[in-house]
């Protein structure tokens, strides 16, 4: 029983950073741009957030800095891909490299430092509900915010005019042109907003989840977020569910180890990646039918220059 609670609350805690990044990637991909640099945006967000929180003492200023940092890195991707027509996968990977180097250079001063972290806040009343209480209502503030983020993003994309423009840029870019909008502007906005969300994801990791900074601390979560968006068929609410699935796979390892179950740690560490691959294998073809048209072009034929 308590194993279930441990894994589920760990799923929510551990899945939140991936959810933010996945939501960001959804925005970007809906406009027709894949950003493998999401991993890099998370790294930059994690460091910018941690460093700012350390310098100012305010975790929320940290989150703000993470937004700026993630957006700034994504802007480079936007310039390369949207303006210069560079290959999206190559550009994204390049960003990751840049982020790895930059965060390791600037982050070396912050290893082992402490901050005013975002600690879990139990919501009176609600947190006493059996199972659901500790799982959903004994979390940090960024996690509570994420409960709203996914539905809000869904509303924004499905029901508002900016959302419509965004989807059009991803489905049939020429329609935007016909109606006097600029595809480039829309895509820039989407990629940068996506980077900002990924930055928040990184900040959740450094300010709330691990409450510390260390080199290369994202270890693949950004890539998982990219995969997540595919099997969530570009729908924010499914991204949310997928992120918790990832979080559960992540939480299983410490929960089992705390109970003295002797399984090779790395066999458990690999679970999130295996689960992601398996789900992709089973849902891949079906969800790809829902891919934005411009995006499918990117996925189907990635030319060589």
């Amino acid at each position: 029983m308590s194993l279930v609670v441990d894994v589920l609350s760990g799923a929510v805690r551990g899945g939140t950073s991936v959810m933010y990044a996945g939501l960001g990637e959804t925005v970007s991909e809906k406009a027709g741009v894949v950003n493998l640099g999401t991993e890099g945006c998370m790294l930059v967000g994690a460091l910018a957030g941690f460093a700012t929180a350390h310098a100012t003492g305010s975790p929320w200023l940290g989150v703000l800095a993470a937004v700026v940092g993630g957006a700034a890195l994504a802007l480079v991707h936007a310039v390369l891909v949207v303006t210069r027509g560079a290959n999206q996968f190559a550009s994204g990977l390049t960003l990751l490299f840049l982020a790895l180097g930059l965060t390791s250079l600037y982050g070396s001063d912050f290893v082992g430092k402490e901050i005013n972290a975002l600690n879990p806040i139990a919501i009176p009343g609600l947190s006493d509900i059996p199972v659901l209480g500790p799982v959903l209502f004994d979390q940090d503030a960024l996690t509570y915010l994420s409960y709203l983020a996914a539905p809000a993003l869904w509303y924004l994309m499905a029901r508002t005019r900016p959302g419509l423009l965004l989807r059009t840029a991803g489905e049939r870019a020429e329609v935007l042109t016909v109606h006097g909008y600029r595809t480039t502007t829309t895509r820039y906005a989407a990629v940068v907003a996506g980077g900002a969300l990924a930055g928040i994801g990184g900040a959740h990791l450094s300010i709330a989840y691990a409450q510390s900074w260390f080199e290369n601390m994202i270890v693949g979560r950004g890539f998982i977020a990219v995969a997540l968006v595919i099997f969530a068929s570009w729908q924010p609410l499914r991204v949310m569910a997928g992120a918790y699935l990832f979080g559960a796979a992540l939480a299983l390892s410490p929960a089992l180890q705390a109970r003295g179950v002797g399984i090779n740690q790395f066999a458990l560490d690999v679970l999130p990646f295996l689960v992601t691959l398996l789900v992709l294998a089973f849902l891949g073809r079906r969800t790809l039918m829902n891919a934005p048209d411009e995006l499918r072009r990117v996925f189907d034929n990635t030319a060589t220059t």
Partner: protein
Amino acid sequence: MTATTEAPPSPPAPSPEPAAAPRWRGVAEAATRWAVAVLGAVIVFGAILVSKGANPVTVFADAWQATLLNGYAVQQILIKAGPLALGALAVVVPSRAGLVNVGGEGQIIIGAVAAGGLDLALGDTLPGPLMLLVMLVGGLAAGAAWAGIAAAMRLLVSVNEAVTTLLLNYVALDLLLALIYQPWKDPDGSGQPASRPVEEAAKMPVFSGTQVHVGLALVVLAAVGVWAVFRYTAWGFRLQAVGGNPEAARRAGLPVTRLLLSAMLVGGALAGLAGAIHLTGVEYQLRPGFAAQIGYLGFLASWLAKHRPGPVLLASVVLAALAVAGDSLQIDSGLPAATANILAGLILVAVLGWTGTRKKGATS
């Protein structure tokens, strides 16, 4: 059948000869753009160093001295450039067919794991050279199989290979760690998680008096082979036709699925071979930091060289030099070794943004 309008059949590979008169202007223009791009990257990198309180001139001078003017470091660069170049060729072959293989890192690890596993299993039952051959072939096959997973997912369920190869990198790394922390851990070792060293007789021979091993000859051979395959064989030609326009290739009756699969398998095989060579020629044992980002650097090298085998060798040496310089930075200037990644990243940003042919509004 001119499917490859943007990638002209690769120019004479290893050393780009001075081009004929009509092309001279174009070459000069490209060279200028490259120079500006690299210079821009170096300047930005210098500014970053300044912001960190380091003197860029000293850093560059130190790095220069510690790498290129130092015989030991030059050997380090060469033995690092070898697997890196194979890792880059593992990107080159699929990319000619329009596939993005970001899984070099994982394929290198799996290649090394297979080679190491064969060594552990067979011990000294085989004569040394034969054992070495078995390990190399084993690594090659394992790398191909690992890439085959991503290829199968692309071809059977249309999941993009860039995403799956990336995820498989992490699976490969965890597999390596799981093995060397428990079942394969060297009982006579220092307590560090690492497998026992490769049998002495099965190690790659080195040029006497140096650390440079003969596996590097294999690397050059592979580069020439890849170049020749795309230049002279029907398979290479068809692959590029698929890369240029898969739909046209399909209608022309080419077996697109089989071609894509084979491109990915060959790519994985090259990376797997890189892993086996790195194990038998340099590392001798599997340890946690075994691959050291060689696969990712190979990806950058392939894109820097625009997927041409000759320039890939050059780009690999440059990136290997950067990586070695990064290690020296750590010692001389107290900057983290990963700092060199910034320069590598900046150069590729510049190359992607300012030396490519701009495609109007395209997002391919």
